[in-house]
Each structure stands twice: as structure tokens, then as C-alpha cells.
């Protein structure tokens, strides 16, 4: 179950973007002074004890993220490569599904399919990139499963596409590698562990509710992993890399748990 070095060299020390603290020292000090006044009545920031923002203190962040890495290991242990997520009936499918990204639905930049291709990198035998037509020509599978967001909302959806384990086999991926990393058209990225990538329900998704993925929901290709939280399943994918190096991801780099299993 050892899927990641305990401390990756790619992981920033003491939290993300500490250098911006130095750059904006003046501004932050102003904010912190204001924070202290509010802290005088604040149980939450524990400001009475230290006079500063405990949660964002570098050593506290380091400790909390170390425990989060421990939780990655616990989750990898709890994860069963064969246990399937519960499935539901067609009648329960929410359509259209709930939108989510790190920006608003109105800010979605649709992928130009003429110039789009799915690129492969890392520990794969055939690095030839794929067009949407080529992906559509592969054997297709469907699932009706529950999407669970880390925020606490959920819905049942129907996703169709290529079984990801089959795809990895087809491209000659080294399935002994530790990670699969996804890069996306909108600048999003994400990394998952190989065990989850190989789970029978992990899917390279091309359709939602029997229709081609709408622009707002990841067209042309997203990954669907019913054993993981939503933020672990990037949309608008442009590149897939099989690697032993932990590359992080958009939310993972911002303190969200790496494993994100459910």
C-alpha cells in the first residue's frame, strides 16, 4: 500500500506559495492586525492564545499536512481494488448534473475540438496522441453512480466512456507506476494513485446521460472515479501522464487531501 514517498520532493514545505507572504508582507500584516482585533472575540482562530492566525501558521500547516499524508495511507489501506461503488437506476439520474469547477459556469471556455487531442506522457509504450473519433471507436461502458463532492453535496449520474484500466492496458502503461496525472484545458490538474486508476469503475468518460459531454461538464473527455471525491476527477482533459513522481494537482496543492477516497 506504499504508493507515495512519505514526503515528496515536489511537495512545498510548510504549505503553498509561502513566497507570496514575503512579497505582500505589508498587506498581510495589515490584514493580520485586523484579524487580531476580530480574534479578540474569536474562538475559531484561537487568536487569544497567540495573537496570530493559527490555522495558517507555517508549522501548524506543516503538521496538519503531515497528518493529511498519514490519512492518504489509511485511505489506501481502506480502499478495496475490487469493491464496487453502489449503482442506481436510470430514473435517479440528475440531468443536467450540478456544475463544478474553480470558476463559474459562465466562465467555462469550451474546448475547440478541431485542435484538441489527448496527449500521453511518461511510462507508456505508445505515446501517440488520441483524437475524439479514435476514443469513440474504443469499446464503451456505462455506469450510474453517485458523485460525492468534498463540500458535502452529491448527485446520481450516468457516465459512459472507456474503462480506464482497459485504456491504460491499450497504451501499454506501466501499471506498476505510482501515479496517473491529468492536465486540463482550463489549467486544472490532478494526480491519482494507480490502484484507483485501475479500479473497474474508473472511466475515461465521453458522455453524460447518453449525450456527448456538454461543454460545461468536461467536453470532450473527463475522468470519472466513483470511489473518489469530485475534485479528484478532472474534466476537459488534454494530457495523461503515467509517472512515479508525485505531480500534485490544483486543489491538492492548496491543502486538499491527495487520496480523496470515499
Amino acid at each position: 500500500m506504499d504508493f507515495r514517498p512519505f514526503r515528496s520532493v515536489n511537495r512545498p514545505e510548510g504549505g503553498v506559495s509561502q513566497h507570496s507572504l514575503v512579497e505582500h508582507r505589508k498587506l498581510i500584516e495589515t490584514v493580520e492586525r485586523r484579524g487580531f482585533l476580530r480574534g479578540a472575540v474569536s474562538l475559531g482562530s484561537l487568536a487569544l492564545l497567540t495573537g496570530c492566525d493559527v490555522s495558517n501558521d507555517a508549522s501548524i500547516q506543516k503538521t496538519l499536512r503531515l497528518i493529511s499524508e498519514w490519512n492518504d495511507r489509511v485511505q489506501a489501506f481502506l480502499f478495496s481494488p475490487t469493491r464496487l461503488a453502489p449503482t442506481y437506476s436510470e430514473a435517479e439520474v440528475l440531468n443536467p448534473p450540478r456544475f463544478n469547477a474553480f470558476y463559474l459556469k459562465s466562465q467555462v471556455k469550451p474546448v475547440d475540438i478541431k485542435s484538441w487531442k489527448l496527449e500521453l506522457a511518461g511510462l507508456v509504450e505508445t505515446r501517440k496522441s488520441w483524437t475524439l473519433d479514435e476514443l469513440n471507436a474504443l469499446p464503451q461502458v456505462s455506469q450510474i453512480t453517485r458523485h460525492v463532492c468534498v463540500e458535502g453535496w452529491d448527485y446520481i449520474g450516468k457516465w459512459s466512456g472507456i474503462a480506464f484500466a482497459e485504456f491504460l492496458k491499450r497504451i501499454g502503461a506501466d501499471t506498476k507506476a505510482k501515479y496517473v496525472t491529468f492536465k486540463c484545458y482550463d489549467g486544472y490538474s490532478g494526480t491519482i494513485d494507480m490502484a484507483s486508476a485501475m479500479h473497474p469503475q474508473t472511466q475515461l468518460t465521453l458522455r453524460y446521460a447518453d449525450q456527448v459531454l456538454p461543454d460545461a461538464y468536461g467536453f470532450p473527455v473527463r475522468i470519472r472515479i466513483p470511489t473518489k471525491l469530485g475534485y479528484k476527477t478532472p474534466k476537459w482533459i488534454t494530457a495523461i501522464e503515467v509517472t512515479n513522481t508525485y505531480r500534485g494537482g490544483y486543489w491538492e496543492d492548496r491543502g486538499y487531501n491527495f487520496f480523496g477516497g470515499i
Partner: protein
Amino acid sequence: MSGHAKGPTRVVMVHPPLVRVVHWLNVIAIFIMVGSGWRIYDNVPIFHWLTFPIWLSIGGDPEITYRHNGDTGFSNALLWHFAAMWLLVLNGLVYLAYGIAAGRFRMKLFPLSPRAVLRDMIAAATFKLDHDDISKYNAVQKLLYLGVLCILALVVISGLAIWKPVQFWWLTNLLGGFQGARLVHFLCMSAIVAFVVIHVSLAILVPSTIKAMITGKARVPADTPPRAAE
């Protein structure tokens, strides 16, 4: 209501060191779990009319956190919640093991009958409840302590159902699905917060109980059998 015993008294150990350590560690664990839980809840409130003020919840200053993590403290709240859960669970297991093995539960929380609860409730409401011997819990106390122990077990179980609705899908189903488990988790939190309010208020009314939870010792009537005091 003073908690000072009349007549001949002696000082006995009412809370052994292990119980005191576990109690105060639990205070820290509950504080972090509830505080961070409120910040997590606020992201997708179960009841639209209820959100918790950001300054009252744990997750850091919203402006600083936004600069670091791109959210107003949700990421930090999750980190706190999934760290303090270990303290809550491991500490709770130590307490349970000790309570059963050392016979503390049997001695302190039992016997307990509805009749005794009713009697002590009436006595408390009419300010006639006797606090001469704080080494012995009255029936209302026993009920509250037993109740909060069960609620703490349920808050952990429902937390597990929210954390792993696929790996423990049967547990999540048992609690009414993912949103059902969230509701159970929320109601347990509410019960725990209510308990804390009552518990702290009553402790302030009988301050010798606070001293006992710090020093372990309390002054009791001289005729109290030594075992009952432990």
C-alpha cells in the same frame, strides 16, 4: 448547592490521572472537531436558515486563507477535522477500555433507573439535589454521561459513513444515505454542544467538580466507602 460536605469529611481521589488526562484531551478534540465542522458545514448548509459565523469556526482567517488556498478556510477546516478525528477516536478508545476494564463505568454510571432519574430531576428543579458527595453521580448526571457517550460513538460512526460512503456503503445506507449520514452527524454535533453547555454550566454551579477534574481530589463525607470514590 455549595458542594461543601457537612459533618466529618475526608479527601479522596475521585478522578484518577488517566481519566483527567483523557477528559482534557477530549475537550481539545471536541473543540477542534466542532469548530472545524462548522466551517465545513457552512460550505453546503443542511438548513438554509442556519450557518455559523466564520469568526466562530476553525479554518483560519478567510482573507489569508484565500491567498494561500483559494478558499475562505474550507481546506484548513478539513485538515483540522481529519487530524483531530484521530485524537477524538484514540482518546475515546483509551477511555472506553479503561472504563470497562477498571470497572469505572459500572461503578459510576450504574445502577440507573427511570425512577431515580425522575426523582433527581425534580430534586434538581427544586434546588434540593444534594452535592455533598461529588464522588457519586446523581441519576440525571449518570443519564447525561451515558447519553453523551452513546452520542460520541454515533458521531464517529456517522463521520465514518460520510468519509467512506463507498468503502462502507452499508453503513451509509443504514444512516439513510450520504445526506442522511450528514444529518445524523449534524444532530450528534448539536447534542454534544447542548451537553457541553449544560455540563459546563452545572460545573460552574458546583465548582468543586472543576477542581476535582484538575487535581483529581475532592472532599467527601467521611462515611463514603473508599471504592465508591474511585
